[in-house]
């Protein structure tokens, strides 16, 4: 059984009767059992996955209508609710939380006969970019287990990269899908803000976060988007994409398309290997008929500070609900006054979450809001104007997904500002609501490099077409695990 096939290949194979969903899911569970001790992608595995796959096989055999996923095993970042199963957010605070309802993306995937193989690791409440801040321990990069897999959707990227599932759903607040996709050599896609419902995603920073797929191929990302995108009455920030088919015309190519190379994202701090890969990607796009030239987005240099100011403020508000009354862990109330009980219980948040909440209380507070929060919001507005202006001239923008190569576990954990700066190339898409995708492009010293393309809002179809064209120029070695 070849577990390395893409989502579309899997669907075709099950449809044609060449493989059964049950066998594939069973083999996938065996794979998880054999490699996940080393990788720690999964926080929980769905013991009923094989039974679910069996049900789908029965439908295939009897000629009943089968959903588009045909029993495809998918992992889900553990900050999305699946009814009656644990959703921990990789936090002690939600260690035993059982979701009472399905997130909209889960409902849609269930309707299309996806099989949820398990819930995967993340930085606690999606705050981080290495998965080191998970309360249940870090995930490891399958390309070299001494290295971080990126984050916060690290478990998603590891599980796809190491063939522990076919596809995964992550969430991207400042690059949390694209960063681990780049570090683990998978496709990672953040759609236009509003294209995918956030209902049932445990919120960190509502105004900029989006759910996005991590897949083996760009076509698989388009396939996933076809299933999970669209209006949702439970999330009034969702957009109507008129049931767009993102897979159709994906082979359209990029001949004649104008691509802006974002100057501020290939600055002095970029790793030489990443710069070289970026130049190579630009040359390949040009050879496919694209016209590439440099463009400046001046506000990018302030984007990380703006991003952390805004997200910490929203996080402070979002995490206020974890008072250990309705949500929380077993901690007896006896002997505490009401407020001191809550404060004591909230000590169980991890260090990064506490740090961000303190920042989130500090930057919008009286006397500080004008200096930090309001300025951050103004940078966000100006950056949006700049990028909107750029898209009047260019169809797409390009930059490396992450300016550096994956680094060793523990190497940067005590230096929050140097960790922040790794987000410099990804936060722009979040602050402006634009779609962006990371495409596996090169391997340097055994470590992956991803290239990022951005498009204007609701131009996700064009973005996927361009990403597919670039992907076709690349042949990478197989993950060594």
């Amino acid at each position, binding site marked *: 059984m070849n577990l390395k096939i893409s989502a579309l290949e899997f669907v075709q194979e099950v449809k044609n009767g060449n493989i059964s969903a049950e066998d594939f899911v069973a083999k996938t569970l065996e794979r998880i059992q054999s490699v996940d001790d080393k990788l720690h992608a999964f926080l929980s595995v769905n013991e009923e996955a094989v039974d679910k796959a069996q049900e789908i096989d029965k439908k295939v055999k009897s000629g009943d209508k089968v959903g588009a996923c045909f029993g495809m095993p998918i992992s889900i970042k553990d900050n999305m609710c699946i009814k009656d199963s644990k959703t921990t957010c990789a936090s002690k605070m939600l260690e035993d939380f059982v979701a009472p309802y399905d997130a909209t993306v889960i409902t849609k995937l269930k309707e299309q006969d996806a099989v949820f193989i398990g819930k995967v690791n993340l930085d606690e409440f999606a705050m981080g970019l290495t998965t080191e801040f998970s309360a249940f321990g870090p995930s490891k990069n399958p390309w070299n287990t001494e290295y971080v897999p990126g984050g916060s959707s690290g478990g998603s990227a590891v599980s796809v990269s190491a063939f522990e599932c076919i596809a995964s759903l992550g969430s991207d607040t400042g690059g949390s899908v694209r960063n681990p996709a780049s570090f683990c050599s998978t496709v990672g896609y953040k759609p236009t803000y509003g294209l995918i419902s956030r209902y049932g995603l445990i919120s960190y920073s509502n105004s900029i976060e989006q759910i996005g797929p991590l897949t083996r191929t760009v076509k698989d990302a388009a396939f996933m988007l076809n299933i999970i995108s669209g209006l949702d009455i439970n999330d009034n920030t969702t957009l109507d994409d008129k049931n767009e088919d993102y897979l159709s015309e994906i082979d359209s190519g990029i001949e004649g398309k104008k691509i802006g190379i974002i100057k501020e994202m290939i600055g002095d701090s970029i790793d030489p290997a990443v710069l070289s890969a970026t130049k190579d990607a630009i040359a390949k796009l040009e050879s496919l008929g694209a016209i590439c030239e440099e463009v400046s987005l001046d506000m990018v240099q302030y984007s990380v500070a703006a991003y952390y100011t805004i997200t910490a403020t929203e996080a402070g508000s979002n995490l206020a609900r974890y008072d250990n009354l309705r949500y929380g862990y077993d901690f007896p109330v006896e002997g505490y006054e009401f407020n001191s009980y809550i404060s004591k219980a909230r000590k169980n948040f991890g260090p990064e979450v506490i740090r961000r909440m303190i920042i989130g209380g500090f930057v919008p507070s009286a006397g500080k809001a004008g200096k930090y929060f309001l300025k951050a919001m103004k940078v*966000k507005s100006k950056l949006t104007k700049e990028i909107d202006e750029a898209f009047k001239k260019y169809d797409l923008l390009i930059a490396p997904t992450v300016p550096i190569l994956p680094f060793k576990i523990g190497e940067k954990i005590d230096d929050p500002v140097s960790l922040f700066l790794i987000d410099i190339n990804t936060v722009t898409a979040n602050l402006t609501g634009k779609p962006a995708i990371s495409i596996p492009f090169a391997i340097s010293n055994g470590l992956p490099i991803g290239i990022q393309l951005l498009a204007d809002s609701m131009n996700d179809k064009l973005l996927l077409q361009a990403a597919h064209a670039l992907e076709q120029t690349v042949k990478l070695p197989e993950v060594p695990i």
Partner: protein
Amino acid sequence: MVTEEEIEHVAKLMRIEIDDHKEFVDKVQAMIDYFDVLDSAGVESEEISMHEIPISNLREDKHIPFNEKLIDKLNNYKGTYVRAPKMST
């Protein structure tokens, strides 16, 4: 400069007990120092744009009956207080 008193005040607002406020002073100071880069962005005259939500996207405002008797689940009383059941196993 971030002071211990400020950290103590913010921690109280955020309802987090912190044993050593001093420990957070340096960490928060490092982050705040970095955020000072916003001062040079030259955005003073910029207007903050707001995300507009089309009214058609709002769900219908109607009563949905909920038949579960929540009051039956409230069995943790102490004096005049009642503790809500946890969303857990």
